[in-house]
């Protein structure tokens, strides 16, 4: 059995009277690419935000990398945050810093490496995500959408995290860039041994690069598992989401 990285049990979330999650369960194993799927408003982004400590939930337990998020102390949370990287939907690069400084900031704050080595590492991360070297001196406002995603990925990978969260990594990219991004994510998973959790809508990504996923709908997880397994399930939302029978993914 593989190592469990994230385990959510009976998560209940509500905003005022609106219930978002009604006893949601899901499990992410080591070294897999796991996706949270669902229509708009199904609470997948909320679940991701709960995993990265940006939002609290009413009841249930959520374990990430062995820490229980309901009982975690501020110091443990700080440790945990250094072990993951997060790529936000719009990149969320610090607009007052250049791309290189966005990446270098993490090394300056959290390590005591020499400036020369930090410089080398920044160059390396920029190469790794496929950005040209001159991009490190550009500011976020001077980058295209695809470059922002890559720069944000380089920043997320800065501290060599074991766990990577991606919020709609391919939204706003052209189809070719999306496929390149998928390939890059897979390569990183294979070579760096990453575990990746993402929220996505991209059917091609789901088809090509995802190992397992959870489909959210009706405030619950309707299905969890591999694509081939989930497609066997007879549920109107599964049919709707994968556009079974029409021009969508064929089972």
């Amino acid at each position, binding site marked *: 059995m593989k190592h469990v990285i994230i385990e959510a049990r009976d998560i209940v979330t509500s905003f005022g009277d609106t219930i978002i999650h009604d006893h949601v369960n899901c499990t992410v194993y080591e070294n897999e690419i796991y996706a949270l799927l669902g229509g708009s408003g199904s609470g997948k982004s909320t679940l991701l935000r709960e995993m990265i400590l940006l939002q609290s939930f009413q009841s249930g337990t959520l374990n990430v990398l062995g820490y229980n998020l309901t009982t975690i102390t501020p110091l443990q949370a700080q440790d945990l945050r250094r072990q993951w990287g997060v790529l936000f939907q719009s990149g969320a690069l610090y*607009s007052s810093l250049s791309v290189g400084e966005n990446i270098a900031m993490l090394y300056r704050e959290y*390590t005591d490496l*020499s400036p020369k080595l930090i410089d*080398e590492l920044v160059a*390396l*991360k920029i*190469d790794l995500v496929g950005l040209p*070297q001159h991009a490190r*001196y550009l500011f976020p406002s001077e980058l295209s959408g695809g470059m922002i995603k890559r720069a944000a990925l380089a920043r997320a990978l800065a501290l*060599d995290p074991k766990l990577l969260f991606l919020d709609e990594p391919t939204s706003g990219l052209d189809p070719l860039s999306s496929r390149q991004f998928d390939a890059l994510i897979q390569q990183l998973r294979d070579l760096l041994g990453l575990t990746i959790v993402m929220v996505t809508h991209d059917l091609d990504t789901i088809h090509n690069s995802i190992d397992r996923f959870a489909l959210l709908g009706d405030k619950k997880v309707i299905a969890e598992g591999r694509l081939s397994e989930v497609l066997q399930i007879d549920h109107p939302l599964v049919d709707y989401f994968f556009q079974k029978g029409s021009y969508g993914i064929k089972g």
Partner: protein
Amino acid sequence: MQSSSTAHLKIISEPSHTLLQCSGMWTLPYLSTVTYQLETLHPKSLLIWDVSNISELDSAGIALWHLYHRAFEKEGITSELIGINENHSKLYSLLYSGKNEIFSPPTRPSWLYSLGEGAHKNLTGITQFIAFLGEAFVLLFYTLLHPSKIRYRSIVAHIFTTGASALPIIAISAFLIGVVIAYQSIVQLQKFGADIFIVDTIGISLTRELAPLITAIVVAGRSGSAFTAQIGAMKMTQEIDAMKTMGFDPFTFLVWPRVIALMIVMPLLIFFADIIGIFGGMVIAQAQSNLSFTEFIHRLQGALALKHYMIGIIKGPFFAFLIAMVSTYRGMQVSSNTESIGYYTTKSVVNAIFLVIACDALFSILLTELNL
């Protein structure tokens, strides 16, 4: 064997070469001591890295090796790597897949260049502002010929937010200015036993200069910045582009309603500030030199000529025009990045206050020359 919870580097000097025995965890948190050792190392012409005992390696460890490998190579020292395991070599080839070109940072221009660039930017800024004013006036005349296009509803809404809601802050500022002026003058006037002239001092200085200026500064900080931020936010979300495509002109819809509203409101606010400011002076005159309110008002009727009051009020629309035009112009300059909205809001307030003071100085000179 050393403990493996940190990175180790053992330097062994052999007759023909230097052997570096690397062991432990060559990962991000543990590299600083190793970096120091490598920095101070003076190897022989052949350097052998034995990496077989490295238990864990990440991108930082690889970058460190690569950095010094390259540095030593530059000094003419050849390196050899022994005992590398397969996973580590895979990781290395992922990170350094031959595309690692060296790119030097863009050079900074000289101070003279920056100075010239700044001056040029300011000059073009002024021409752009004049162009903005020109465009605004073309549309004003067009709207005046088609009065049905005037946005009355919008004007009234802006009168409320820039006028009525500003009363409390203006009241406090004007009252305090009245108090300060009264206090400072009374001390001087008492030396000559000329306490009664406090009425002249307060009446003339407040209505003619201080009330208009204080009101304009408060309005520039309060409404000017709001105008820039509102229009800037609309620019960022492409609302202004949307308006243009629908044929709604931003000048008639956004700029003029704000300018006209502020021009109507400003004289009223100045009048309000006059009253409150004089009241502040009266309170202090009574407290400090027992000048009763009735006596003060009686004296004020003689001392304060109508022209002083009128001059103060007339400045209002001029100040209002400058504040509203500059702040809407700065709002229109906001570009799509998040930083620019803060940058232009600051700029708008600074420019507006400067222009108000410059305009006030112009008024002083002009009116003195006209013997008013």
